[in-house]
């Protein structure tokens, strides 16, 4: 994917969540955001994913400039996939229905087709036996995997994942990370934020360090983790890598 963000500003009251953030990505499959809590990773993902509009600045993804117009943004969201930290699924629908409903109502597939596609997506991630269950009857890891299955069932151009594992215990984290890696290997374009440095190193083509609403540094994982340039990034990495 290609991505160009220029001087993005997003404020919430007095907080400047994005403070003149710029980022250029020429050709990358998996782009990973790391950085301190409150640095602006989620906000950046939400702006890039078309869930929120920046107060200033502009974004071009794969040649398409994001507009502020709601209908345009909705069309943009429809061709991408998004997964949040937690509580993604609709609790009143079964896992299968969670995947099939958007396919039916948003993408215009017939109910039978939507169901077939949803079953396929569940099957792909080893979840077919859980299709009839409500989210509350699934483990946290299974819920996130169904969430990912829902996001990729309609073959998104870009898959946005915001800290997909931060609400999970280590075992479930591993099962979700494995799934994301598989998707990346199958050629899915992904932009994600994470606190799992080992995973970032393994899966990313490019890593961007986000702090105080700006990109402090952006490079291939080997460079950024091996030889960080900015002092903020050095301090952050030495702190999180200590344990």
């Amino acid at each position: 994917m290609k991505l160009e963000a220029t001087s993005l500003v997003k404020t919430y009251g007095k907080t400047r969540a994005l403070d003149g953030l710029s980022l250029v990505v020429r050709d990358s499959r998996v782009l990973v955001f790391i950085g301190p809590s409150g640095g602006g990773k989620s906000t950046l993902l939400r702006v890039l994913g078309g869930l929120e509009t920046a107060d200033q600045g502009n974004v071009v993804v794969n040649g398409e400039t994001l507009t502020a117009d709601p209908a345009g943004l909705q069309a943009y969201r429809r061709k991408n996939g998004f997964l949040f930290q937690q509580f993604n699924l609709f609790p009143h629908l079964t896992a299968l229905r969670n995947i099939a409903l958007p396919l039916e109502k948003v993408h215009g597939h017939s109910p039978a087709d939507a169901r077939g596609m949803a079953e396929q997506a569940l099957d792909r991630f080893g979840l077919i036996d859980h299709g009839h269950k409500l989210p509350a009857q699934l483990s946290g890891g299974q819920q996130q995997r169904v969430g990912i299955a829902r996001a990729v069932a309609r073959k998104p151009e870009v898959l946005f994942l915001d800290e997909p594992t931060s609400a999970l215990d280590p075992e479930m984290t591993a099962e979700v990370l494995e799934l994301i890696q598989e998707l990346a290997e199958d050629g899915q374009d992904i932009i994600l934020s994470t606190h799992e440095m080992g995973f970032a190193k393994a899966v990313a083509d490019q890593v961007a360090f986000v702090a105080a609403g700006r990109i402090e540094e952006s490079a291939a994982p080997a460079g950024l983790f091996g030889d960080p340039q900015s002092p903020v990034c050095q301090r952050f990495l030495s702190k999180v890598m200590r344990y």
Partner: protein
Amino acid sequence: MKRHLLANTLVALALVALVGWLSTTVFAMLGTQTDWTKAWEYRETLWRGWLVTLGISIAAFCGSIVFGLLFMLGQRSPLVVVRWTCRAFLEFVRDTPLLVHLLFGYFVIFAPLISRPLGEQGWDDKLLIGILLLSVFEGAYLGEILRGGVDSIPRTQWESARAVGFSKLQIYRYVIFPQALRRVLPAMAGLFVSLIKDSSLLNVIGVAEYFYNTKNFISRSYAGLEGYVPLALGYLVLTLPVAWLSHWLEKRFRHET
């Protein structure tokens, strides 16, 4: 357990004794005058009144859903003016008695405005205006119930719904309402029970519903118990199933989530 068993028995005996004493005294006083054949003679008027009450309840229930939705959406409107007007109107409706709405709404506002044309079309203007006013009144409460239900759905649900590409209407229809409805159904059924009871107030504008017809029967035939007992039973027959439905729904949805 044993001690409770004893206490329960004693309380039950005391209650039975009290009710028994009360009814024997009352019946002893009325005994000679109570004549159930009177009620039988008037069965047709009573039956017609009961059907009208049933019809009013169903129509006003549908009407109150329409108004409730409008009031709920009005309060969530992006336009400040709409939100404030809505709030003020709801506050006014909920802080004044239904009796006042009916008298004021019928005699001051609607009767002079549309009674004549309605009558010329062959409609029963009192009935229609009564249903409308009742719908607005109950709709004001329902709007509040629905707003509470919609507000109780976490923000992440709106976000996820937007993220999968649903339009605003689809978000309400497929994600928010189904969840909100589960939470407010018991309260809605409770409101329906009030609505059925409140429909008796329509007698003040002369709608020939169950209470109105029974009242006429009582005053015309000097009936006592034989008028009031069917009156109470007639309303119970309508409200009890709804109350049961409410409890059943509550139980069912509790297991589901």
